[in-house]
């Protein structure tokens, strides 16, 4: 177990600058998730830590050692691949034992470690089978087992759950969390799935176009996104965005957009006062919208027309028409809403997000 430090890491493929100046300090025993859309450089970053991809510039440290020039085998890492990458001609046992055999462990020690890992993962009964005789979930366990037996300094996960069906993915997510709590090995986990990122990570790193957008604990990112991209990427359904102009009206700061005219509450108004006269983006999470009685109209509510009602069981998603734009609201499952119904929605004043229109940074 060791910390991992990434300093000003860059990767260029001919014309393409895939990873741009990534800086990251991963603490010992920490579980850090790199998340972002495909092509954001998260996998390339992971592969540079693994030593599978050369580093164009910058440094990677595992423990106290700069590992830039070390081959993967000397970095004391274990990696779980998206497609499992199990050796098809070897049994489950041999797949797990291979790394130890290559490192010349004693036969008894190999056996002890393989059986221990198989026990943790519940795959004792499959040890003599070949990978192709296993289901996707079982293969994933073997791939995990192959990493566990090595007792490495760092676990690297490259979208390990993306080939599993939805139900199994949730189950394996929980198991991964348990295994990490039990082993306490530093882990770097790459995914494009924001739910995995939020649930697994001690800290989450959101990337886009090779650049780190924000690093922090999951709820901090969710509640205080640093920019519009992070705000829109985390959360499902995604945050609603409305273009509004900030104007002063009778001493109040108002956000005026298509179908909305909001009187901003005290602290927010103070914060945004220096952007008066500008066009900015207002962000509202679907769960921060609430249906109120038509009479209860106040400065933080607006009119909307229901277009689609999606009943998910635990909640209802309302696709709404607001002015010419649209919004999604997540409301209580008991709400009775009909298509084409006119509703009045109120915003939670504590949970309004504003982003600069040009830089997209939170303001």
């Amino acid at each position, binding site marked *: 177990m060791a910390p991992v430090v990434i300093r000003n890491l860059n990767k260029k493929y001919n014309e393409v600058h895939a990873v741009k100046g990534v800086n990251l300090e991963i603490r010992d025993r920490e579980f850090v998730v790199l998340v972002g859309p495909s092509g954001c450089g998260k996998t390339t970053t992971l592969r540079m830590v693994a030593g599978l991809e050369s580093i164009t510039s910058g440094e990677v440290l595992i423990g106290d050692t700069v590992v830039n020039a070390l081959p993967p*085998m000397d970095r004391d890492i274990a990696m779980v691949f998206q497609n499992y990458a199990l050796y098809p001609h070897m049994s489950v046992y041999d797949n797990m034992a*291979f790394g130890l055999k290559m490192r010349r462990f004693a036969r008894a020690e190999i056996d002890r470690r393989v059986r221990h890992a198989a026990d943790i993962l519940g795959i004792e009964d499959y040890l003599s089978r070949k990978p192709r005789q296993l289901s996707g979930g079982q293969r994933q366990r073997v791939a995990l087992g192959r990493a566990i037996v090595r007792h490495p300094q760092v676990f690297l996960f490259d979208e390990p759950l993306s080939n599993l069906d939805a139900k199994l993915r949730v189950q394996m997510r929980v198991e991964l969390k348990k295994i990490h709590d039990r082993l306490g090995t530093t882990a770097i986990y790459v995914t494009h799935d924001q739910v995995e990122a939020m649930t697994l990570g001690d800290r989450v790193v959101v990337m886009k176009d090779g650049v780190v957008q924000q690093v922090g604990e999951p709820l901090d990112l969710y509640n205080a996104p640093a920019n519009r991209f992070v705000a829109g990427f985390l959360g499902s359904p995604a945050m609603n965005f409305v273009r509004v102009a900030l104007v002063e009206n009778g001493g109040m700061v108002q956000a005026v957009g298509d179908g909305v005219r909001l009187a901003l509450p005290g602290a927010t108004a103070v914060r945004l006062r220096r952007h008066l006269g500008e066009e900015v983006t207002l962000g509202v999470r679907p769960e921060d919208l609430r249906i109120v009685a038509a009479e209860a109209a106040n400065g933080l509510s607006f009119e909307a027309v229901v277009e689609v009602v999606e009943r998910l069981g635990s909640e209802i998603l309302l696709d709404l028409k607001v002015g010419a734009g649209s919004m999604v609201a997540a409301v209580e499952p008991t709400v009775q809403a009909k298509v084409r119904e006119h509703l009045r929605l109120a915003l939670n004043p504590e949970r309004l997000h504003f982003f600069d229109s040009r830089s997209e940074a939170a303001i």
Partner: protein
Amino acid sequence: MAVSDLVTRQAFADAPQRGAATRLLEDERWLAAVLLLPTVVLLGLFIAYPFVEGVWLAVTNATVGVPGKFVGLANFEALWNDSIFRTAVYNTFIYTAVATVFKLGLGLWLALLLNRNFRGKAFTRAFILLPFIIPTVLSTFAWKWMFDPTFSVINWTLFHFGLIHSRINWLGEPDLALISVIIVNVWRGVPFFAISLLAGLQTINPELEEAAAIDGARAWQRFWHVTWPLLLPVTMVVMLFSIIQTFADFQLVYVLTGGGPANATQLFATYAYQIGVGTGLLSQGAAVSLAMFPFLLIVVVVQLLYIRRVEVH
């Protein structure tokens, strides 16, 4: 009577008038036989008939222009005591074994190189196939010039680098001649190995190599423990194809040495040709050809068993 009734009746009235052949073909057994017929005719005409004719020739005393009578195994008895035939058998095994080992080794090496990423990869891969594409007789004539004692470009080069001081008679010395013939066979056969093995390599998920690298396997161990076992099925098929072709090789030797000097490069096929066509002893030539059969049969059986085993797994 409604119009529809009329139409229906008309249709039923027409049914029995369809041809007898059409009705016969509606029976699956007949249809199967008809569909198989072209294949059976082709195989029979071009494979079964010549084979049976060859077997028949081998047990007669036919010569050119003389139909011949049945003589049992007399031709094979004669071969058993024929020292040239024994030389040809020995040469054929040496030729096949040495050429196959080199073709596999060089072909695998080339395939591993071509499997990497480099500029001009597609062009190189196409270029590699050249020896395989050029008609064998033409390329072999080029080699014959290169082996010519007087005009040999090989000798000229070696001489100019001071490596030799007298001409090497590549095709004139018995041992050298066999080596020369093997070199040409290897040159011609390597592309087939390289391209086939390259195709095999490309079916192997590159993540396996990466997983093995992280698992601590060095380059040689990754090849031995991961790549080679996964490439083995393709390798087996390619090798067995090559063995069959090399074992029955004719063109190279016929053009380069004609089996000489002093039968030093005489193979099954060239000896069969020399006796059967050269001397006109058709029956004995057929017997020489047929003597290849048991060995090739074993190779084919091994190949089929192996492929079946791989398919079962």
